[in-house]
């Protein structure tokens, strides 16, 4: 294949009238809208195919590099998490009532939301998505949780378990009493038996109930 050497010839690649730069841009546009003079010219097509293969090979190279990277050091991750400011997401302070004049206990909104996430996650087959927390007056809260349920599991028992645990967690660990807890199931996920690789998993398998 000698098309690369023809890129400066006056007639363009293969005499098509299009030079390498034009073909390179055409490849990046996904060869649309189609240009007959290019698509019908064998040397142009060969060059376009080489350009595509080169891109694919480059992505293979980075994927290979990525796979060969050592897993990030856990200490490094911990240091990273420590660097990230928690104050940004802490939200308001929610105080316990009646602690006397000389003591003040507060739980941050961020702590409560994270508590609800982890409480929901602890239910077998559930994964928490969004957490909505509305504080009605000082100690009453309305909670909305959206959860993803593991494929093939029955939805009602899982939702009920999440609701029960969330209520218990609020009462035990926060100043808040739940007025209402709405659980919405808006996704299905595949629960892998054990994480063996780091590839991002897909959500629902084809054929399972999506929503």
């Amino acid at each position, binding site marked *: 294949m000698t098309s690369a050497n023809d890129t400066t010839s006056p007639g363009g690649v293969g005499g098509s009238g299009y030079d390498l730069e034009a073909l390179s841009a055409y490849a990046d546009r996904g060869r649309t809208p189609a240009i007959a003079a290019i698509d019908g010219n064998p040397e142009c097509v060969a060059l376009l195919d080489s350009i595509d293969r080169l891109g694919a090979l480059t992505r293979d190279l980075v994927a290979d590099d990525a796979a060969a990277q050592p897993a990030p050091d856990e200490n490094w991750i911990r240091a990273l998490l420590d660097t990230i400011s928690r104050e940004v997401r802490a939200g308001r302070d929610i105080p*316990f009532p009646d602690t006397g004049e000389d003591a003040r*206990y507060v*739980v941050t909104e961020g702590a409560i939301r994270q*508590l609800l996430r982890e409480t929901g*996650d602890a239910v077998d087959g559930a994964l928490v998505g969004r957490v909505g927390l509305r504080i009605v007056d000082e100690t009453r809260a309305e909670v909305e949780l959206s959860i993803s349920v593991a494929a093939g599991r029955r939805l009602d028992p899982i939702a009920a378990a999440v609701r029960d645990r969330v209520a218990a967690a609020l009462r035990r660990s926060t100043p808040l009493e739940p007025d209402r807890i709405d659980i919405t199931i808006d996704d299905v996920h595949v629960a892998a038996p054990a994480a063996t690789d780091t590839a991002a998993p897909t959500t629902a398998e084809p054929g399972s109930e999506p929503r």
Partner: protein
Amino acid sequence: MSDRISSSAPAEDGDAPAADELGFAIDAAVLAVPGVQRLFPADPAALRALQQVAGDGAARPASAVRSGSATISVAIDDALPTREVCDELTARVREVAGPVPVEIRVSRIHVDRL
């Protein structure tokens, strides 16, 4: 950047090395309470400002003692009711700092997975 200075002088309000001593003592007492996972800086903005001026060579206590009152920020787990843990924390802080007002901020609650 000086090391933490041990002072035998009595602690006075605004006496920085002594307040640090007290802060470290409170940190140690708090970490010993069942249910406490870790401490956060009680006053992160002040801490950052100090670190910018003094460099981050010197360790600072997480707990803050200001105007005679003690403030702590903690992560706890959910094995015990939060209020109970806070009561215990208050008692332990007062063992170290005397009958001072105490403010406890619970910044994180870990769920026990068992």
